[in-house]
């Protein structure tokens, strides 16, 4: 019982402080005072998800609202159950972040049917009033072009084919394929590799090590591509351990550690498309606040710029991303 009291006390304090800050800082964004904002995310074990989640929670508190924040721990059934309960709680708005689009679709529809405005982060949905996200078309294209130019338009690449059912991963993968069409001398080694959750790093490490054994000569493998940056971490470690640093790695998201790897001139990590997840989360909530204040003219998408971090601009980019 005392635990709960302390929790509530902490919560009240946080809300109180948030209200103070908001009075001082947020002139342009309307207040969320007294509003309950439901936030449901597929999982938070990845830097991107966590930062976007925290960005939302912090911004709701800053604007004086009450976040009802739910993390499904990367389990579809659990996220569905949480959304179902959330609908019954009747918050003023529900924000949904990432997840499998086909699984979520009917439940997002139910949110709208219950008369609750729905906003999304990184989830494309016809039921969403506004989706705040990075421009994944441009991310996928820039990363693929960087890869192609780094390996001079020829060579074999290993591809972690990501979670194709997650729309943003599918876009990046499709953009890679599109770019590679213009480079007939770049071949994807078959079969493509699997990403697993959890244990992603160790699994990627082990698979890449196995394949470095299978293709033992310099030049057999030119690069490793993954739709996010956690397999990139495992692949990079495996390449260093096998002394095959001529193989370059590419990924998306830009966790601070990966940006540091890219900044290291000796690391095989060649580039990462760094998103600004915290800003994405914050922006989504600002859109919510504007909507609740009566602005019903929001665009369907708000794009937050991403930065392609490579060997040349890494130090500068880290500053711009607020990571150093």
């Amino acid at each position, binding site marked *: 019982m005392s635990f*709960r009291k302390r*929790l509530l006390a902490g*919560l009240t304090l946080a809300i109180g402080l948030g209200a103070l800050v908001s009075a001082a800082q947020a002139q342009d964004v309307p207040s969320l005072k007294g509003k309950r904002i439901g936030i449901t995310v597929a999982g938070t074990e990845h830097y991107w998800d966590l930062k976007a989640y925290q960005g939302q929670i912090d911004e709701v508190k800053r604007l004086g609202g009450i976040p*009802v*924040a*739910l*993390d*499904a*721990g*990367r*389990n*579809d*059934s659990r996220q*569905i*159950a*949480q959304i*179902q*309960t*959330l609908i*019954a*709680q009747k918050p003023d708005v529900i924000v949904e972040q990432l997840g*499998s*689009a*086909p*699984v979520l*679709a*009917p439940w997002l529809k139910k949110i709208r049917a219950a008369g609750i405005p729905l906003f999304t982060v990184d989830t494309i949905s016809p039921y969403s009033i506004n989706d705040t996200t990075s421009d994944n078309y441009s991310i996928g294209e820039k990363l693929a072009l960087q890869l192609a130019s780094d390996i001079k338009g020829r060579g074999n690449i290993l591809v972690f084919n990501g*979670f*194709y*059912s997650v729309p943003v991963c599918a876009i990046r993968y499709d953009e890679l394929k599109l770019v590679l069409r213009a480079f007939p001398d770049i071949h994807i080694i078959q079969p493509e590799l*699997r990403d697993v*959750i959890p244990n992603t790093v160790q699994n990627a490490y082990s698979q890449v090590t196995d394949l470095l054994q299978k293709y033992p000569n310099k030049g057999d493998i030119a690069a490793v591509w993954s739709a996010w940056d956690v397999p990139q971490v495992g692949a990079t470690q495996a390449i260093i351990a096998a002394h095959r640093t001529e193989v370059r790695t590419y990924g998306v998201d830009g966790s601070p550690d990966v940006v540091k790897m890219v900044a290291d001139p000796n690391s095989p990590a060649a580039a990462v498309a760094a998103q600004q997840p915290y800003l994405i989360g914050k922006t989504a909530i600002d859109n919510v606040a504007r909507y609740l204040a009566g602005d019903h003219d929001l665009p369907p998408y708000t794009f937050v710029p991403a930065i392609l971090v490579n060997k040349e601009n890494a130090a500068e980019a880290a500053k711009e991303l607020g990571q150093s």
Partner: protein
Amino acid sequence: MSSNLIAEQAPAFLDSSADLEDRETRRARHRSQIIRLGSIAALVAVFAYFGVAAPGFANLGNLANIVEQSTVLALLAFSMSIVVLGGGGDVIRGGIDLSLGANLGLCAAAFTVASNAGFSDPVAVAITLAVGAAVGLVNAFAVVALGVLPLLATLAVMNICGGAELVLTQNTVISANSPLLSYITGASWLGLSMTDWILVGAAILLIALVHGTRWGLRLQAVGGQRQAARAAGLRVSAYLTGTYVAAGLLAALAAIVQAARLSGSSPGSGDILLSVVLTSLMSVVFSRRLLPSIGGTLLSVLFIGGLINGFQLLNVSSYWVNGVQGVLILFVVAVRSLSLRRGSV
């Protein structure tokens, strides 16, 4: 109720084994009744607390949601309880089915793929049930005919099912849409959705079957005293085979509900094995004997479901849920085992 039934209807060997009970054991059984009532009281107390403290918890709609969210887990936990009842409580040599979660995933994939291939709902359901039962038969073949330890046999089958699901779905989400799926999530009767009714129906049927019929009582005899059961002329292997096949069928049923909730099949959705094991074994604290029961399993599943729901309504971080679940179960089990200890080592 069930102990009276045993006294009245059980075959002779159960009586003779009852004679072997000394006074200590009988006293322990009394204590276990107190624990059982205590556990139920704890459940009621927790729900009452949520009812007062958590806004909206006691709404009929919310309670129906809890049941709905518990259905898949409950069906699998029933399966586990039946397997444990028939195979005996020893964790290593006794009955256990680790393939249930993977079977759920495989069956959901089978239903989705069949449905997308143009098969009508009845045919897709038949295919799904056949897949589930086939997995159960493979388990039974390994355990009964080959004599492999259930823990091991079902572990290997778990891998096969997991791989087969990947082969079917290529590790992607596959959507399905069929009248049956919409009916399961959409239709409601007396304020309860079809998902709720599936759970209610399955629970009533299984309680009657396992605790009320001759088959169920003999099954418990097979699990409790295998040699004696064999000596009394029961076809032990037929009973054991039955438990694994029944478990497979229930997993297939759960898969159809799951496919309805997730609008198809989604990789990793079969990842609930540990919760299944936990709730099934936890049901012991709600049972009269030291073995799982269907009613006890239902109570523990609803307990866990209510806990998760109540936490969300109280805005407690979901990161606490697993831990609290673990502590709670250890606590109840410890109380039970400590109070029974004087009767046994």
